[in-house]
């Protein structure tokens, strides 16, 4: 059973879907633009009425004319607000993926082929509205922020494009479905912050331990700056004596390096939590510049160390379970 409120919203949603179907590039026409006076428009109508009554009661023709002038401006405002949107071309230009809980930066591009458009506002949630002017002939980029709360494919849905130009008495707006889509990585969670919880609560404690970055091999591959907490045995003492800085000798172990982040190694943890931990693991390995690969059901990413490899891995985590 649907509540009347939800049913109403559903009804409008379907109606809007029919009236303004989704499109990647949208040129606004009269089908897409709604116009209605704002609350301030109401206050202004009251002012017009006050002027007219003053004009009548004091038999003052010019005050009456002033009232008429503002009534005429009000009518003109309806058309102007509409014209400010009509003919505008808007397009979704993509978004950089982010970790869940962060703000997605959705990039759009606005273009006007006839006349300058002023004071356009684009946004999704009240805090995200951005105001721009679009001048004739130039493509104007707009970036709005959208808080991505869940891992996976993020579809913010319809956006509001609106304007109350020039005087704020009448607002023209349109709900646009620009097929906005972005991928959201899992929330990054570092197991070290969570103490021994994984070990205490799960049977796969050993596996987790196994999945930890292993250190202590003999295959020396080079030096890198020291990070606090690393074993004393790895510090390159000669280097310290020479340069005064602490350097750490790095070794590559043929057995556990390249490292693997394995889905199965996190067994027994709820899925999102699991992906978050894997995400944390991936990021840490990347920060440590350890080559790593990713193993997921149906996905195997060969070890690598580059930025794009990191993004591929994170994307794989984000995509897990989502329809292709």
């Amino acid at each position, binding site marked *: 059973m649907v509540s009347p409120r939800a049913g109403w919203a559903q009804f409008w949603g379907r109606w809007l879907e029919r009236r303004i179907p989704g499109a990647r590039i949208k040129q606004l026409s009269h089908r897409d633009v709604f116009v209605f006076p704002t609350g301030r428009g109401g206050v202004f109508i009251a002012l017009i009425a006050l002027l007219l009554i003053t004009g009548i*009661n004091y038999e003052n023709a010019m005050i009456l004319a002033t009232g008429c002038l503002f009534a*005429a401006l009000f009518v003109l405002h309806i*058309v102007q607000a509409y014209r400010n949107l009509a003919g505008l071309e808007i397009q979704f230009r993509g978004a950089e993926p982010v970790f869940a809980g962060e703000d997605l930066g959705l990039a759009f591009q606005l273009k006007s082929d006839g006349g300058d458009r002023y*004071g356009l506002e684009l946004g999704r949630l009240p805090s995200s509205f951005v105001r721009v002017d679009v001048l004739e002939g130039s493509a104007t980029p707009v970036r709005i922020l959208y808080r991505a709360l869940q891992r996976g494919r993020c579809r913010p849905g319809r956006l509001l494009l609106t304007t109350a130009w020039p005087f704020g008495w009448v607002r023209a707006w349109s709900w646009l479905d620009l097929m906005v889509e972005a991928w959201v990585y899992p929330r990054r969670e570092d197991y070290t912050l969570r103490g021994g919880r994984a070990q205490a609560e799960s049977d796969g404690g050993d596996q987790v331990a196994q999945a930890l970055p292993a250190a202590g091999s003999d295959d020396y591959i080079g030096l890198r700056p020291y990070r606090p907490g690393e074993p004393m045995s790895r510090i390159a003492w000669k280097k310290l004596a020479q340069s005064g800085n602490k350097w750490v000798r790095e070794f590559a172990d043929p057995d556990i390096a390249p490292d693997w982040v394995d889905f199965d190694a996190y067994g027994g943890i709820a899925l999102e939590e699991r992906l978050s931990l894997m995400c944390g693991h991936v990021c840490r390995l990347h920060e440590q510049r350890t080559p790593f690969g990713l193993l997921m059901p149906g996905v195997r990413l060969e070890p690598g160390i580059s930025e794009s490899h990191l993004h591929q891995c994170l994307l794989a985590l984000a995509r897990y379970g989502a329809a292709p």
Partner: protein
Amino acid sequence: MIFQRQFIVPSEKRVITRASLYWFLLTMAIATGLHWDRLPLWLIALVACLLGWRLYLSQAGARLLPLWLKTGLALASLGLFVWMNGRSFTIETAIGFFVMTYGLKLLELQSDRDAFLFACLSIFLIALTFLFGQDLLNVVLVSGSLLLPLQGLKTLQQSPGASQAVWPGLLQTGKMVLLALPLLLVFYLLFPRMGPLWSMPLKTRTGFTGLSDSMMPGEIAELANSSEQAFRAVFKGEQPRPVDLYWRALILDHYDGTTWTRSLFQQNRDRDIQAGYRQEDVWRYEILMAPHNHLWGYSLAGFTVSLGEAAMTGDQLVRFPYPVKAAKRYRQAPIPPVEQHLDARTRWRLVQVPANSNPVTRTWVAELQAQVEGERALIQRMLSFFRSEPFFYTLKPPLLKSRDRVDEFLFNTRKGFCEHFASSLAVALRIAGIPTRIMTGYQGGEWNEAGQFWSVRQYDAHAWVEAWIEEEGWMPVDPTAAVAPQRVEAGIREALMDNEEFLLSEPMSLARLSRIGVVNWLRLKLEYANYLWQDWVVNYDRGSQSALFSRWLGRDDLTRAAGMLAGLAVTVFLAMAFVSFWPRRHRRRMTPVERQIRRLERKLQQAGLVFESGRYTLRQLEEKASHRWPVKADEMVLLIRNLENVLYADVKDPQVLSRRVSRVRQQISALKLKES
């Protein structure tokens, strides 16, 4: 989904930008400035302080006042206002109060919403300027000022990166207002005109100047100090002589020794309006009257109202059924003289003067009466007394201090203006037993050649005497004409032009400067423009509206008019909407090269090559033309190469580009193709 509120932009609490704030401060300065002459000085100073303070705050980036200080300041201002104004409550004090609260609003002008309310208040305050005059000057001032709050509202909608240039912004706003003008005209013409919905409790204190219904000769040493318009008169046919223009307005019939007033009896007579005869097409002159908030109108002797809301009283005075607050128009037509009666009681009333006063005058009158027979002869003797004795016409007479004022004036000071002369003559006639009353109104007027009308101003105000002649009726007698004939022949402006005392309170008045030829020409033209404005626009009332409706609709019908208003508004709106829905044409301008290609195409077409413009590439064109005119083949090849050179070689330097284009242009011009 359509009206989901939480998605509507939350601009209410947004702090306005500094540029917006400056527009609102400017708006406030101008809106207050428009009312400067009816605001007390302390209020103007207060507003100036508030403005400066707010400006300082925005410059220094300091925070607004805490609540207790704001409240305290508001209460203090309120207290000051009550203390300064007391209990009097007129339009002026109301505007003062409005300005004060409006100024205090500045203390908390911070958010978008405050700014919007502030703009609304400003618009109302600016529009109120019209309460004090609706002439062209005011219209220009007010419409200019109204651009400011509109511009302020616009800045609220601007995006952060928008240009803050002052003039382009104002120009844009001005264009919007211009676009609204046709619709304004429609609304103004069709908005139903009606009487006041309820009586307005607020009356103005100084808004209207003009005649008053009492006269205290000797106590007022200031007159003729306003060049404001009282009314305008348009005569049909032959123009009258200024000497004949005695515009009657009020009868003062009671004298208490210092002051002439209307007796209760006279007030009753003034209220007793007699239905005049109405005949629209018969008229001699038309009056367009400025509002004065009184009941009276103006008329020459022997005329009645033939069109308009006014009517005549038994004393042949024009009276309106209610105080005149808007410009009024009426027409008058001559009537044959009616037989006049004076009952015994009235006759007794009209010879009353305070007993035992003015003994010298009494002896003088008795001497005259002994010398002549009949009222007319007596009056003549008295006038010749005014003519022959050294009386002096001045607007700055000495004050009359003694109890016997007429004695003092006639035989001692002998300096005065119309009131002094009229009053002393009337007293003398009453002592002689001739029923006499004081008439006040206006005398003369200024002929405006451009507009073909007579313009009568406040400084034309005049007082004279009407004496009752047995068997004949009331006879007008003007002692001022005897003393200063130029006053009635050429007007007070001429009579006093070289005199410092004329229009003392208006040093820069155009009327005062009218000796300068250009100024006078300009003054008359302006007056004519104002007359047309008043006549056609301001005075568009119920009457003109119904005349217009009858002409358009066949009959005057409010519901039909309302329907028409709605219909017209919808039509205009649809027209505007249609223009908007019409796909915007691609109005890209052609580049110079493209224009040359078009020229070439047209030349080929004119020479007989049949093809559609833009159909062929340059190479195809070359081929077609060479085929058609083999002689010109080389020339064509060269031409097309040059065109390609401009079109495809990526030339950045505009000078090189324009040189190449001009070479192509010359080649195209040189191309001679024979039709074949």
